[in-house]
């Protein structure tokens, strides 16, 4: 093959792959990410995780920290909640019932499924208990089952709220309980038709009066039609007493985890943005959520960058689109967020942990780790710092995929891993150091992904 043919072949290959080759990734962290031009070749970039067993390996944590698997053989753990007595609730399930509308859905669905666990979703809450505080969670019991793809969790006083894929439900909970008293009571139904993005994130306001529910879009970028997007891509504010709701923020493509900031009471979210615009578009973000705010989807991204795939266009909405606070990088797939506390050690005391499930739409995969975004004066300040890594090796073998992250106020980060079906616990201190005895935490509003700051 002469040189010209070679050049032509390379050009063709990169055209087919949507220019995956280069990957000199632009700096995409923080408030002002570089946004390259939109691109899409004939085939989207697809690099899917190749699952492998952990064996004797462990994820990597910073010097001076210890990681341990505290529960294995779960059935698709997604989000966790640390209860006042130190018990951990794990929501397990797999949702969505989106039909395959195009030949593409059949093919891409088959390929993407290879990067996930083959285990059937549990549709249950599992309770983990470490009674003597030695760091080993010797009790693993089903707290409630028969749920429908539970995801978001929040505790307000003696009420445990669970966001199923189709409804917000509640259980009565008293400290020390290991099994629900009975079936849950529905607070309100949630939009569930199709459920392309099925996860329903949940957080309770600091005073416990409202619940915030994250509802993802029903498509990547309206390819299921606009009628499928009624009441989608938004965050609901639900009155805990009445179940009445109103949209708190809209245009939020897929708000996969919510957290209320200790002290300020502000609502924060991690949001997954759209695919198939190139390896460095569109950044997933971490942002405080403004009441009544519109965040762009589907007509624009990162403020007013118009997405021509959403037609007819909507210039008025685009003009009102809010620029998110902090870019986490494109395609990292942030699925968990939790505010830290001084108990996590000086370097990680002020900021949020973010669980990144990892990319599919990128030839050079990103995510597949837990990062820490440092805060100063209540706002993100500085680049993300790797906190838990080693989920995906350079050889493409992937042993785990982080989802929900929760800070245990006693000084531990709980990480749910829905590929190896494991709950990981990261603690400050060297290996085998026993944790402090479980001291009761003041009861108050606690949410999956937020420290229970007892302001109630």
């Amino acid at each position: 093959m002469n040189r010209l043919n070679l050049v032509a072949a390379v050009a063709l290959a990169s055209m087919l792959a949507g220019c995956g080759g280069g990957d000199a990734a632009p700096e995409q962290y923080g408030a002002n990410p570089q946004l390259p031009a939109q691109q899409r070749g004939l085939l989207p970039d697809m690099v899917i995780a190749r699952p492998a067993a952990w064996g004797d390996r462990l994820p990597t944590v910073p010097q001076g920290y210890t990681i341990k698997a505290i529960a294995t053989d779960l059935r698709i753990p997604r989000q966790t909640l640390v209860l006042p007595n130190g018990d951990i609730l794990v929501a397990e399930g797999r949702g969505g019932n989106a039909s395959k509308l195009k030949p593409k859905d059949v093919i891409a669905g088959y390929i993407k499924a290879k990067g996930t666990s083959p285990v059937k979703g549990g549709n249950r809450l599992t309770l983990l208990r470490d009674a003597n505080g030695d760091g080993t969670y010797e009790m693993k019991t089903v707290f409630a089952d028969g749920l429908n793809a539970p995801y978001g969790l929040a505790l307000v006083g003696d009420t445990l709220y669970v966001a199923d894929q189709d409804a917000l439900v509640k259980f009565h909970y008293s400290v020390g309980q290991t099994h629900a008293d009975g079936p849950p009571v529905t607070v309100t139904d949630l939009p569930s038709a199709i459920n392309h993005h099925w996860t329903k994130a949940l957080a309770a306001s600091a005073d416990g009066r409202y619940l915030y529910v994250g509802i993802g879009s029903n498509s990547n970028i309206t390819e299921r039609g606009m009628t499928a997007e009624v009441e989608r891509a938004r965050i609901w504010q639900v009155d805990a007493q009445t179940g009445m709701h109103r949209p708190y923020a809209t245009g939020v493509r897929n708000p996969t985890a919510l957290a209320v900031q200790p002290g300020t009471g502000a609502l924060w979210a991690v949001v997954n943005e759209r695919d198939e615009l190139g390896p460095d578009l569109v950044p997933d973000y971490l942002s405080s959520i403004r009441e009544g705010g519109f965040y762009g989807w589907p007509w624009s991204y990162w403020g007013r960058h118009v997405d021509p795939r959403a037609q007819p266009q909507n210039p008025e909405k685009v003009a009102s689109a809010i620029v998110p606070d902090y870019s986490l990088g494109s395609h990292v797939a942030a699925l968990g967020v939790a505010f830290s506390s001084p108990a996590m050690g000086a370097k990680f005391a002020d900021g949020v942990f973010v669980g990144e499930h990892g990319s599919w739409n990128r030839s050079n995969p990103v995510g597949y780790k837990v990062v820490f975004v440092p805060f100063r004066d209540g706002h993100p300040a500085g680049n993300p710092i790797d906190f838990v890594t080693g989920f995906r090796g350079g050889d493409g073998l992937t042993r785990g995929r982080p989802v929900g992250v929760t800070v245990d106020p006693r000084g531990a980060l709980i990480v749910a891993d829905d590929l190896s079906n494991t709950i990981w616990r990261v603690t400050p201190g060297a290996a085998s150091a026993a944790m402090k005895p479980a001291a009761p935490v003041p009861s108050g509003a606690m949410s999956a992904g937020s420290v229970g700051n007892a302001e109630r």
Partner: protein
Amino acid sequence: MAVIVERTRWAFHPLNAVFLAGAVALFLGALLSDITYFRTYEIQWNNFSSWLLAGGLVVGAFAFLAAVVELFRNRWRKSRAWIYALLLLATWILGFIDALVHARDAFATMPAGLVLSVIVVVLACVALWIAVAGMRAGGVS
């Protein structure tokens, strides 16, 4: 003797006609759906186009294979058989690229998908024309 008459009468085998006509109809359907989606943004037309193209590619592949067989059977003039086969090949390749373009989300399929669908339909129609004209020139005995 009767057997020989049968064979010469079918210069264009009925099965070939089914494949070719099927491909033309399916690609034409995809084009019409594309036009409607382009005008209305109604996503279901985009879904229709994708499946019609997929169907056209399946049937069109058989039509192309039949054309290749025709190359070796010497019932058509050599040049006509070659043009016919190459036209079908071009139709199929462009149809495949069109299908990949249609795998994009929402309006990212436009306008490239519509333009490709027009070209594919024109090529398929020319192929059909040559096949039918070839049938007459080949001489039904």
